[in-house]
């Protein structure tokens, strides 16, 4: 079985190219005050492409990726490109880059890295990565 789990499991850091980091921050700023969201596909745990997605949740403090887009990405787009899910990202427009209770309760993809982009300090957007598994949060440092 080849999935992101076995590859992300045990790694000390996650390599996120600067262009991807910039794209996520740009999307977060563009969609504020709503939370933005998306996924990162990759191979062998290394990111290859960012897919911004539609947030269908109501209000400004929740996100839910449009499941129709997820179906397409998970079962068509990523298999067609020989990639797999490596990370899920969303923004926290006014709170820190740390998983909230909601983020932890709704982490149904334990093999993915969860990236959170905080715009709390607007001049200093912060992006951090976490593995969220069975309610336990472990930070995975992001490196360029």
């Amino acid at each position, binding site marked *: *079985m080849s*999935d*992101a789990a076995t590859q992300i499991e045990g790694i000390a850091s996650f390599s996120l190219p600067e262009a991807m980091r910039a794209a996520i921050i740009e999307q977060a700023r563009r969609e504020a005050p709503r*939370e933005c*969201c998306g*996924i990162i596909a990759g191979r062998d745990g290394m990111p290859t492409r960012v897919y911004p997605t539609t947030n269908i*949740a109501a*209000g400004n*403090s*929740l*996100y*839910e*990726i449009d*499941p*129709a887009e*997820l*179906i397409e990405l*998970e*079962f068509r787009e990523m*298999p067609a490109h020989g990639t*797999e*899910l490596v990370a*899920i990202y*969303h923004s*926290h427009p*006014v*709170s820190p880059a740390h*998983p*909230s*209770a*909601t*983020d*932890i*309760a*709704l*982490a*149904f*993809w*334990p*093999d993915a890295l*969860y990236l959170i982009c905080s715009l709390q300090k607007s001049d200093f957007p912060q992006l951090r990565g976490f593995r969220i598994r069975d309610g336990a949060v472990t930070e995975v440092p992001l490196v360029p």
Partner: protein
Amino acid sequence: MSTDDGIHVLIPTPLRGFTGGEARVDVHGGTVGEALDALAVKFPGLGERLHDEDGQLRRFVNVFVNGQNVRDIAGTATVLSPGDEIGIIPAMAGGDAS
């Protein structure tokens, strides 16, 4: 291998531990509910991931039939035809509202 008269079910990566790593499995059923029940019988443990304690499809699990979310059709009562494709997708959701 798939058969022509079955329902093809696409299994998302977080649930493939229940299907021995298979991304696509075939079951029989005349409705979405019957197909999901057949899936739960075939792969022990999977049912609890799809249904809550009341037997309802979990809020944060979405099921699509031929590209349409069953919540927009008839839910688990949605009628299936042989050869239909079901896609199961757990939500990617959260946010800073606690």
